[in-house]
């Protein structure tokens, strides 16, 4: 949750309408350890000035830099993108908001989605291979 809060700071020109995070094992039977996949799917609305931010985030370097910062701030090494047993991919799609209405600046309310000219859908996928230190052991703990 800290990662999401830092990804979308307050007053950044973005409005989140749905957030879904899943972590699932990467099924590869017969191995001593099982890798897993974490996925974040976030959708919402975006103002013109925040489009550039989303574009900067929409690259391996952009999202890796963000994850590195989270790992450093929280001490949670699961966010560290450096090990070569992990891959991190981001995909951001933006499109025009069909319910957008142009209105004077003073009438704009941050929670009103019709004041945002674009909508966005962002998917982050982080894959941990079976050789990663965080992979799940298949056997019972001794």
């Amino acid at each position, binding site marked *: 949750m800290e990662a999401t809060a830092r990804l979308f700071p307050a007053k950044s020109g973005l409005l989140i309408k749905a957030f879904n995070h899943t972590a699932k094992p990467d099924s590869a039977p017969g191995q001593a350890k099982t890798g897993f996949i974490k996925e974040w799917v976030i959708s919402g609305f975006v103002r013109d000035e925040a489009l550039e931010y989303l574009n900067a985030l929409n690259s391996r370097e952009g999202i890796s830099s963000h994850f590195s910062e989270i790992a450093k701030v929280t001490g949670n090494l699961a966010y560290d993108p450096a090990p070569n047993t992990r891959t991190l991919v981001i995909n951001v799609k933006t499109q025009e908001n069909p319910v957008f209405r142009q209105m004077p600046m003073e009438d704009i309310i941050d929670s009103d989605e019709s004041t945002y000219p674009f909508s966005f859908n962002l998917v982050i996928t982080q894959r941990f291979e079976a050789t990663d230190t965080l992979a799940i052991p298949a*056997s019972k703990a001794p």
Partner: protein
Amino acid sequence: MYKQTIILFGIVIPVIIAIAVIGASGYFRNKITTSFATKTQHYAGNEKSRMGALEIEAQLSRQREASAGWQNLVGQETFSLVTTNLRGIAESLPPKEFQQTSFERLGQAGAFGSVSAQKSSGLKFSFRGTYRSVQRAFLELETRMPNLQLEELRIDPSANAESSLLDFHVVYSAWEN
């Protein structure tokens, strides 16, 4: 008449004795130096091993405590432990910012439990609250119960359009003994 005797006892024999003493001294000095170097080396090695052993002992002592805590945690009944912890956490948060709306014990192990021989159970619960308060609650819960493995977190705006609160739906796998 005594010239040869004087030379023999006055010069030759003292020189031979002096050479023998010097040679013996050099030999013993060399032997002592070698022995000292060997003993110093052994001492340094032993000292290094002793420090290493102390370090391992301290590490084991710390791990023993962590292991005992972990064994105690996974030995308890997960459902009631989570309930107790959540009740304690809720008391430390503003009631309007953190409300538990449902709690369900899933009949089967979660996705992570299905790939491991380690025993586990699935838990599903929902909350209504502000982002920061629920984040604090999750942080506290996962700190108290590191055997919880997050499998799913969904956040939606509250169904009540006038409310600024969010709905949180969470699924955990809890590792058990």
